[in-house]
């Protein structure tokens, strides 16, 4: 079983990202679970969401303490939120930033993958909604979930043009990180 944690801000769609991730994993034939950090956070405040994927039924109901993967939707969080907390040393962290990974001050042995998801989103969607780009990158960087499944589910969730565009974002991000 792999555990994933997503960091973002209220309003950035971190929970949706976790859900899409679980849905896509299920689409790929895996068992999956997604849930938000149960909080009272308002728009703009740092939030977290989680997912679990596994090839056997998932029964565990506790929070995620040692994620294999961490996704950071907004690099402005890096100063305030402990994004590296508990991440497995052989895990991966995907960070939305225009900078280079060497410029990031993250204290972890896990591999750090960066991506300018904001730019990608602005380019294709015209809005700074970065979650689908990061999911595409997750797929590419980890291989845990296929980008096809991701695309399928995002199109299902957002029928019409919006879904198509997001699928495109995913595709592109997936390529960028080498998927």
């Amino acid at each position, binding site marked *: 079983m792999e555990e994933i944690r997503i960091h973002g801000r209220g309003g950035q769609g971190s929970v949706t990202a976790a859900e899409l991730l*679980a*849905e896509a994993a299920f689409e790929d034939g895996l068992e999956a679970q997604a*849930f*938000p950090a*149960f909080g009272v956070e308002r728009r703009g405040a740092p939030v977290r969401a989680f997912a679990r994927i596994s090839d056997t039924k998932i*029964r565990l*109901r*506790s929070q995620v303490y040692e994620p294999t993967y961490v996704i950071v939707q907004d690099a402005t969080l890096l100063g305030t939120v402990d994004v590296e907390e508990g991440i497995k040393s052989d895990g991966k962290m995907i960070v939305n930033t225009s900078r280079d990974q060497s410029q990031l001050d993250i204290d972890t042995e896990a591999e750090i993958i960066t991506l300018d998801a904001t730019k990608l989103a602005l380019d294709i969607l015209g809005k700074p909604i970065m979650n689908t780009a990061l999911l595409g990158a997750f797929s590419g960087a980890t291989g845990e979930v296929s980008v096809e499944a991701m695309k399928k589910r995002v199109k299902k969730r957002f029928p019409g043009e919006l879904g198509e565009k997001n699928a495109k974002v995913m595709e592109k991000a997936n390529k960028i990180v080498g998927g």
Partner: protein
Amino acid sequence: MKRENREVMEGSHAVAHAVKNCSPDVIAAYPITPQTHIVEKLSQFVADGELKSEYLKVESEFSAMSACVGASATGTRTFTATSSQGLILMDEVLYNASGLRLPIVMVVANRAVGAPINIWNDHSDSMGVRDSGWIQLYAESNQEVLDMAIQSYKIAENDDVRLPAMVCMDGFILTHTYEPVSIPTKEEVSDFLPEFDPEHKLDPEDPKSFGTVGFPGDFMEFKYQQHEAMQNAKEVIPEVFKEYSEKMGREYNGLIEEYKTEDADVILISLGSVIGTLKDTVDDLRNEGEKVGLIKVRVFRPFPEKQLIDAIEGARAVGVLDKNISLGNKGALYSELLDSLYNSDITPLTINFIAGLGGRDIPESSAKKMYEKTKDVAERGYVEDEIKFVDLKEA
């Protein structure tokens, strides 16, 4: 688990779908975290014409349950959902609904009761109303909760029972979690659950009076009948489960579920979603060679006394995890387990873990500690601190 029917869905939405397929005539609800997604989804179904129910967006939980009482008394199928403060607020109407013998079904998204105010999961809310004459089922997973919602109607509406039923699902932990579930279709549900058509109802064609004054000469007999109905439910529930299992292909075997208990020295007992974590823990421990088992209490009201005693037989110690405490005494499940054990033939050692209050997470590591502690009790042969608050931050 027929994979083809399964879909990843939020727990709240899964329940809403199941309820929709039970075709409740009247829904009356008031929002409260973490129940909201259930009633929001139902609102959407109604707005979209997918569900033809009268949906009352009432001004309080008190009125939600009161409207259900009124609607149910007209002989219609009703639904509501609530949580925590909302459940406690409707307490007076809960007694009323059961006393009037109305088979209302309610989903409770379990959450702590304040002060301090806290929106996270524990079982203080539903345990706090365990005297009110409602059947109580506790779900381990989203699959279970949606199945139980459907089963509940059949149980509650059974002529030998005719009591309202509460389906308890852990707030956030289930309500807000996406996971694969299989939802019986409307046709499947209809085949399982007949229309509700009670003999007695508010009907100008047969104008009876309901809710009359019960004098001292009769009151006790009314209560006895309710108590009897609860006893009957102990028979009816397994039958309903059986039929459901047969029709839907998912196993529901009884008031409790045993997990690797046969040869267990130590048994953990609990209810609700923590069972999932405990199953993983038991598997891990079994892998380490520990003789540990687990009992899931699926039905808390009526209390499955006999079933528990049978299941525990052979264990040296049981550790009961309660997500509530009756302040000044013990956890409810523990308390009632012990009151059952006392007059049984078995004498396992017992310890009560108060855990997960107000959303305190219960990781596997804590579950293991509880096991260790229980095993320790088994080995020592006595219990020192009977009531243990788990993962308490000391001063």
